[in-house]
């Protein structure tokens, strides 16, 4: 690749949303996530490497390594090249290690699966999905070209991600969409009324006309000081022996779940969230005095504020349900959650929330706090935030790949390293995969979740990664036999 400037010149400060991943990472939750595509054949590593080389060149962001400054972390361009490897680490194993200059992602394969794992400070689920889509597209094309004629040929490898010249630039290190949309343009200029700004941005959307929303919670300190009478239930459990993330995948026909959600008049995400709450309640047996269950739900901001940047660009919304204060059947809970979620996940509400966050980020006093201290503050804020959360849920929705990959790829799914029980949903090729991850060995809540589905006539298949000594011994014995 030719570039105008020597590569090391290119660097960009990490936005605040990404900084939290550095501050909040722990041994059991290294803030890594994976997206997976399952092909219809055993993956060929040589072709995959070839496809990775092609795709890597198109995504300058993925060339970045993470460095530490006095006040901020920053991403810096590097000359490193990635290599595919067989899957020989547990899911979401740590990627970033301070003082080590390595790439912030890895591509692994196992049997029919192509897996992309990313340190969350680099990119979010949507950004990662763009990369995986291009990677799998290139892989299938190269493979089919190889089948047709044995001699290596020039294969046209178009990108699924719309990459004209403008978009190509957007894939690089420069754009931080938070700054683009939510930061004041010049020093001294007053922040435009955020509601007005949002109205402009979301003018085509009916929700944008809504005034201040009643369901909105206080951010920042207000959240730390949440009144304690509404005690939030938090799942306790046994940590896995080597602190790895416990992952269990439930695969089911997408249409069956969609039909169940439609019957209750809600979207799939909130239907599954309500089912998750119910599963937690059933496996807990007794919630005690903490009868409120809450979930954090990431919202992709690109759907409201158009951005081609694969860097982090999402916000989280919190929904909750208190048991024993009215009807607690699955349908009622999911409708109540949907009623909370809709207005919070709208352009005006998100613009207001992010405007406040960015205002905080740009405060002169906070800017000059040295990075280690900033990390401690962020860690504390994260801890306060965690106290009010039972679970986290994330849904990347239905994915369609460009042909010929679309017809050669079966289910697609993703995992996130977890500080608390969590699920990640994604559907492709008519299959919905709900992946549960957790820092604990227990699978009681997943059992209750699966049973609720099968009670309603949904066909569920379970794939679990082995984490305990007993499970791994069993696998070793089965392998030896």
């Amino acid at each position, binding site marked *: 690749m030719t570039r105008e400037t020597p590569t*090391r*010149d290119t*660097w960009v*400060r990490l936005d605040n949303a990404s900084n939290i991943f550095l501050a909040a990472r722990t*041994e059991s939750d290294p803030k890594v996530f994976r997206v997976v595509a*399952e092909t219809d054949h055993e993956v060929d590593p040589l072709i995959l490497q070839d496809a990775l080389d092609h795709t890597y060149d198109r995504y300058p962001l993925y060339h970045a390594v993470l*460095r530490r*400054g*006095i*006040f*901020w972390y*920053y991403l*810096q361009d590097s000359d490193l090249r990635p290599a595919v490897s067989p*899957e*020989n*680490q*547990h*899911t979401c194993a740590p990627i970033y290690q301070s*003082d*080590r200059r390595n790439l912030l992602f890895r591509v692994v394969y*196992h*049997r*029919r*699966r192509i897996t992309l794992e990313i340190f969350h400070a680099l990119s979010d689920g949507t950004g990662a999905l763009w990369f995986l889509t291009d990677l799998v597209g290139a892989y299938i094309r190269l493979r089919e070209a190889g089948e047709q004629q044995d001699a290596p040929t020039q294969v046209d490898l178009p990108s699924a991600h719309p990459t004209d010249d403008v978009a190509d630039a957007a894939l690089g290190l420069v754009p931080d969409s938070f700054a683009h949309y939510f930061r004041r343009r010049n020093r001294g200029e007053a922040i435009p009324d955020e509601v007005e700004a949002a109205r402009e941005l979301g003018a085509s959307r009916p929700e944008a006309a809504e005034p201040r929303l009643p369901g909105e919670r206080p951010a920042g300190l207000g959240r730390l000081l949440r009144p304690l009478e509404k005690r939030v239930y938090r799942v306790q459990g046994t940590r896995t*022996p*080597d*602190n*790895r993330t416990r*992952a*269990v*995948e*439930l695969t089911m026909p997408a249409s069956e779940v969609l039909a169940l959600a439609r019957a209750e008049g809600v979207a799939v995400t909130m239907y599954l969230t309500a089912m998750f709450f119910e599963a937690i309640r059933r496996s807990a047996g007794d919630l005690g005095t903490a009868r409120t269950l809450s979930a954090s739900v990431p919202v992709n901001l690109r759907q409201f504020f158009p951005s081609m940047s694969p860097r982090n660009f999402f916000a989280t919304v919190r929904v909750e349900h208190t048991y024993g204060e009215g009807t607690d059947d699955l349908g009622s809970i999911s409708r109540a959650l949907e009623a909370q979620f809709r207005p919070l996940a709208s352009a005006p509400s998100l613009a207001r929330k992010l405007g406040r966050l960015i205002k905080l980020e740009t405060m002169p006093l906070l*800017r*000059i706090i040295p990075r280690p201290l900033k990390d401690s503050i962020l860690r504390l804020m994260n801890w306060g935030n965690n106290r009010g959360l039972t679970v986290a849920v994330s849904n990347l929705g239905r994915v369609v790949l460009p042909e010929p990959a679309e017809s050669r790829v079966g289910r697609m799914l993703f995992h996130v390293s977890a500080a608390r029980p969590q699920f990640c949903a994604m559907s492709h090729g008519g299959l919905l995969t709900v992946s549960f991850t957790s820092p604990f060995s227990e*699978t009681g809540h*997943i*059992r209750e979740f*699966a*049973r609720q589905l*099968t*009670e309603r006539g949904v*066909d*569920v*298949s*379970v*794939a*679990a*990664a*082995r984490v305990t*000594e007993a*499970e*791994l011994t*069993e*696998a*070793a014995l*089965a*392998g030896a036999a």
Partner: protein
Amino acid sequence: MARCEACNVEIEGSWAHCPLCGNVVTGSPAPSPLPAIPLSFSRRRILRALFLISLAIILASFAAQLFFSHEFANIGVARSIWLGLTALWLVVLTAARKRRNLAKSTVYLVILVSLICVYWDFLTGWHGWALTYTVPILCASAIVALLVTVRLMRIESGEHIVYSGLTVLLGLLPIGFVAFGWVTTPWPSIICGALSLVALVIIQVFGGRAVRRELGKRLHL
């Protein structure tokens, strides 16, 4: 594929018991889409524990020296051996931990060894040899070594320039020793200071842009 009748689910992989409820499964096993990864007991955690224990013992050793006053002439040799061993241990630990950045580990070593020598001098009756000879010689050799390695090994400047700069600034300190009259002969300090000034000019001429860029990056507000 295997089935768990209790959960009414299909199970991928060769599980004898349902991974959700632990009941015995029926049917024949299918290959698992997820590999079975053996447990790893973090080597890093063990190394960190060893490091912290070592550090505690070293610091305790240095502190313990205070109890043997320097009039105790008969423990002189034993004390030197003890101090020498703990100092060596500390140097090895530091070098191992900071091995990824040559210039960074040099800065750490210069500071550490200087402090140990000053302490040693104080313990043995404060003859001033540490400030007169050891510290200036240490700084000067570090500067020469860094200039040579950066040239010879073609180390990319951006990464190392901040710490090389710090080493050079450390080299200016001995001039202060002379000014305050802490030394018995001024020559080592003067030579070291002069060398630092020369190195400063060299860095400014050949790497000024890199220095400004690196500082701009690290100090970005």
